[in-house]
């Protein structure tokens, strides 16, 4: 890499002292004897509160998250869905918009099918309930899904969705980013290829600043290359 800007936040490891003020503790931290320490390996972000943004780790679903899941099994009344987390999620037959019989379940969504879900409930023992997003089940029948670490999702989306709009405007593709790090891309094959490449690049350089500018440049170059080859 030629030009790489500096990390704009400090890298911290578990046990690093972050603040003397217990009231500033936010996600990724813990308080001991009135002081705030880092709970994880990540980037410390200190504003009115101090939090630590993880650099790695497993996705834990929260109520309201929208995720891309893959059906792993069908039981009598539930679809078992893999949501790229240590825990399996369930979507009950009654969550489907219209009344269906158990025997019809596989036709609607079979094992291996991918779909967009909303997390409706997570209980303390991590039993996860899903529902179709916005009342309508979206089974992904075209395009492709790439996986990135869930910790990189905010960078793929960008501030107020800037990165995702950039990708959509430069490439003729539809992109959906699940909170669990699964990204659905749908469009022409060449555009999908390029989108995958760009997303992988964002994942690699997620912790650096000036990323949007570099991605814009990369997109311009690649777009040019694609046209010349034709």
């Amino acid at each position: 890499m030629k030009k790489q800007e500096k990390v704009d936040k400090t890298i911290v490891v578990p046990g690093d002292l972050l603040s003397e003020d217990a009231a500033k503790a936010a996600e990724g931290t813990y308080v001991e004897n009135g002081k705030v320490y880092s709970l994880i390996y990540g980037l410390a972000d200190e504003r009115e509160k101090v939090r630590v943004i993880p650099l790695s780790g497993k996705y834990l679903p929260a109520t309201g998250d929208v995720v891309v899941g893959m059906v792993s099994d069908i039981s009598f009344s539930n679809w078992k869905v893999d949501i790229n987390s240590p825990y399996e999620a369930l979507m009950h037959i009654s969550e489907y918009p219209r009344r269906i019989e158990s025997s019809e379940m596989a036709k609607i969504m079979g094992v291996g099918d991918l779909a967009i879900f909303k997390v409706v409930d997570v209980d303390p023992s991590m039993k996860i309930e899903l529902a179709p997003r916005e009342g309508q089940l979206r089974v992904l029948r075209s395009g492709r899904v790439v996986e990135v670490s869930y910790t990189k999702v905010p960078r793929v989306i960008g501030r107020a969705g800037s990165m995702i709009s950039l990708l959509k405007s430069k490439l003729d593709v539809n992109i959906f980013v699940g909170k669990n790090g699964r990204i659905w891309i749908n469009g022409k094959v060449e555009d999908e290829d390029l989108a995958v490449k760009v997303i992988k690049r964002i994942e690699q350089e997620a912790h650096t600043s000036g990323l949007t500018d570099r991605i814009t440049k990369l997109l311009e170059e690649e777009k040019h290359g694609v046209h010349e080859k034709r």
Partner: protein
Amino acid sequence: MEFMKNGKRIDNRLPNELRPIKFEVGALERADGSCYVEHGGNKIMAAVYGPRAVHPRHLQQANRAIIRYRYNMASFSVEERRRPGPDRRSIEISKVSREAIDPVIIKEFYPRSTIDIFVEILQADAGTRSAGINAASVALADAGVPMRGLISSCAVGKVDDTVVLDLVKEEDNYGQADMPVAMDVRTGEVTLLQMDGHLTLDEFEQALELGKIGCASIAKMQREALIQKYRGEEDE
């Protein structure tokens, strides 16, 4: 056997000097977290998987994650071929190492799951359990596991009536005592303390103090290695 000459040890170190140590964070692509460590003549790979679903299912705990730690020596890790598979010694080391790391992990965040730690000794030269714990601790941080701090470990011992830090193989095999120590350096909480051989109470206290100093130096290296993983990419 003569261990001390002009205040120096058989490998020319001072009594309170560690061997050269090198950590490489994220050495394995497929593991959730990993760390390769070279600690003097020890070469050790640690891999962390999880939190993930527990198999067999009866081991799972409803309110927290379980921690599994496997310490294993490669058959070629020592001069005389070691019979592969767990033996009495490695089962014991796995247990004490797990208990050394377990207190800092926040297990309640991940009910019904497991965090699996694998420590493979590729080349052994005394102090493998300590070096393994150091590597495992870094690998856990690399995997994004929430912890109250990093666990650091090193051995202390006695040769020629001198208390020394970080024994080499000869000192371990023919010396008077060997005592591995593991701790969370920030809180001062000691999570592993074993002893083989004989120390007087004074020597023990002296050795424990020396061990704590050694752990503090190692903690700095562990921290630096983790920070370097992301800083390093920038320099390329």
